[in-house]
């Protein structure tokens, strides 16, 4: 479990603190918390709550990226599972709804894993196929409309609270712990890192690299399916057109902000989730700031670049900038 609390991550924590401070500056009541209907209420809770889908996605995505892959289909998988959950919610119990939605995620993951590990397709195109077709499947299920439901169980998943903590946040935390336990509690983490670091060498060392790759795509899709259910529960409806749209990019961004290389190898679950929180803290800050929405993307671009520069291997701290400048002058 040591890798759950990595030594690295200073840059990320620093970035989070800075962005939180900026948020506080644009919105004085940013840190206010109160209890509302047995549920904590405040901007910080919004950050956690809204960050949940991307955090869940990044939990799966970080494993895929660790094997040197990428999964563009997570947004579409969210839409599919949300659509399934919403269509079943009012006629079936929660266990069946969840089983069906997560089962769909499992199938999606098997499909992606099959294309990448068995057919040997490049991950980005292999998952592009499901990214395109998957949203179509989701729309097929809902026939393009927003399917609403009122099943209190499912709604609870989106809006309920345990001990004041919103259920989605609790689920994300649970998934983080579960994933961490599975990955670091078994040899999976090491074998995934080896596969991503050098698949050929790992194969020769007896690692079942195909199975590893299959496993991470499956897990990634299951995480995405869960995120899809939560997103649907949140708005009490499945919006197949928009659920998870472009979230794959946010998830990848979160993973990279969390310091995992897109070239595979070393990964950190906690930092990936922290990356998701950094993104959401920024988004919430933008919403609170009251700037016109035309500025949203510019702010996002600048913050992303700043956060990345903070972690750049070539730029650890101000001192090295000075050193660089001096060297280039010389």
């Amino acid at each position, binding site marked *: 479990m040591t890798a759950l609390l990595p030594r690295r991550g200073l840059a990320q924590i620093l970035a989070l603190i800075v962005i939180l401070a900026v948020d506080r500056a644009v919105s004085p009541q940013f840190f206010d918390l109160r209890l509302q209907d047995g549920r904590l209420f405040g901007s910080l809770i919004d950050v956690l709550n809204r960050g949940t889908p991307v955090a869940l996605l990044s939990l799966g995505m970080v494993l895929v990226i660790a094997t040197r892959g990428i999964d*563009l289909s997570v947004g579409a998988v969210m839409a599919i599972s949300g659509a399934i959950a919403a269509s079943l919610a009012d006629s079936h119990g929660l266990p069946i709804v969840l089983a069906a939605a997560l089962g769909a995620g499992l199938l999606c993951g098997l499909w992606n894993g099959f294309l990448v590990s068995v057919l040997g397709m490049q991950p*980005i195109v292999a998952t592009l196929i499901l990214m395109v*077709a998957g949203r179509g499947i989701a729309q097929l299920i809902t026939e393009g409309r927003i399917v609403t439901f009122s099943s209190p169980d499912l709604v609870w998943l989106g809006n309920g609270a345990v001990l004041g903590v919103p259920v989605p946040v609790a689920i994300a935390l649970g998934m983080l712990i579960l994933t961490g336990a599975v990955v670091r509690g078994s040899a999976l983490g090491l074998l995934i890192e080896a596969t991503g670091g050098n698949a050929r060498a790992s194969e020769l060392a007896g690692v079942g690299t195909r199975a590893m790759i299959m496993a991470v795509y499956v897990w990634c899709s299951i995480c995405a399916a869960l995120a899809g259910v939560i997103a649907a529960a949140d708005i009490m409806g499945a919006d197949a057109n928009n659920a998870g749209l472009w979230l794959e990019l946010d998830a990848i961004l979160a993973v990279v902000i969390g310091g995992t290389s897109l070239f595979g190898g070393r990964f950190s679950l906690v930092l990936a989730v922290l990356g998701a929180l950094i993104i959401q803290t920024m988004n919430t800050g933008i919403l609170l700031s009251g700037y016109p929405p035309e500025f949203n993307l510019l702010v996002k671009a600048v913050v992303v670049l700043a956060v990345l520069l903070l972690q750049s291997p070539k730029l650890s701290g101000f001192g090295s900038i000075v050193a660089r400048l001096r060297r280039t002058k010389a």
Partner: protein
Amino acid sequence: MRGLPPVLITAIVLVAGFALCAVQFPNIASTRVVGNLLTDNAFLGIVAIGMTFVIISGGIDLSVGSVIGFTTVFVALAIERWGVPPLVAFVAVLALSAAFGAAMGAVIHVFDLPPFIVTLAGMFLARGASFLLSTESVPITAPIYSTVSDFALRLPGGGRLTAIAIIMLVIVLGGALLLHLTRFGANVYALGGSRSTASLMGVAVGKMTVKIYMLSSLLAGIAGIVFSFYTSAGYSLSAVGVELDTIAAVVIGGTLLTGGQGSVIGTFLGVLIQGLIQTYINFDGTLSSWWTKIATGVLLFAFIALQQGLVALARRPVARSAGAAS
């Protein structure tokens, strides 16, 4: 010739696909449809050439769609609102986009950051900048626009080879020349093989990186101008998501995302394959929004699987003869 067999296979896939489509919809086999295919995909073809350089060098450029959007808005505003002569506006916007690409390349190299993320930030930046310029779509009425969009070489059978299609074909040829026959092109492959090794072999990796992203953004700028010809307007939301179409076209064209392998002609074929899928779906015309997406996915899968199958088939005899030869 390195890279020829995959290209040949892609070409076979394209021709076979075209024949199959034509069997179902005989109208497809007309110069009109072929002309449309070239015109409609002109801007995609142009960005895809730039993307080919980037991907072969081992990078990726997610900003191209936004750069196209920015270019159309900038050009439209420059011509219609600021009263700049069109040609001056083109030069200015190309200079801007090239500088933008160079800046991304420089950040990637100097700070050793992953291109995926740097260009993602670039994507936000360019799109955000076009929102700032104008959120409304701006029609362009300059005479050059109607002249260019009216110009077309008539093909036998009613098809039209439009100006923008010709621009695309010229850029494809130029790109092929640059990639396959020049020192710059060889260095692009070298970077894709291994940056560190290329550097040890004396390739100026930093300069190359800057130039490659500059080229990609420059071509995205040209694609933006072509797009503005195509639509006679500038609009901040144009070409959203085009980066993924572009990457798909490049990869279908046989370029490896890991870098070091690929070809310009392959990319061109990849663009045509994507265009063919779209044309087929349009001809069918019975598909709902969702079946359109599903069919696109299925066809994408079919093309790639077919291609991979053929590549695997093509490789097998080679392995055998390699053994026999030694």
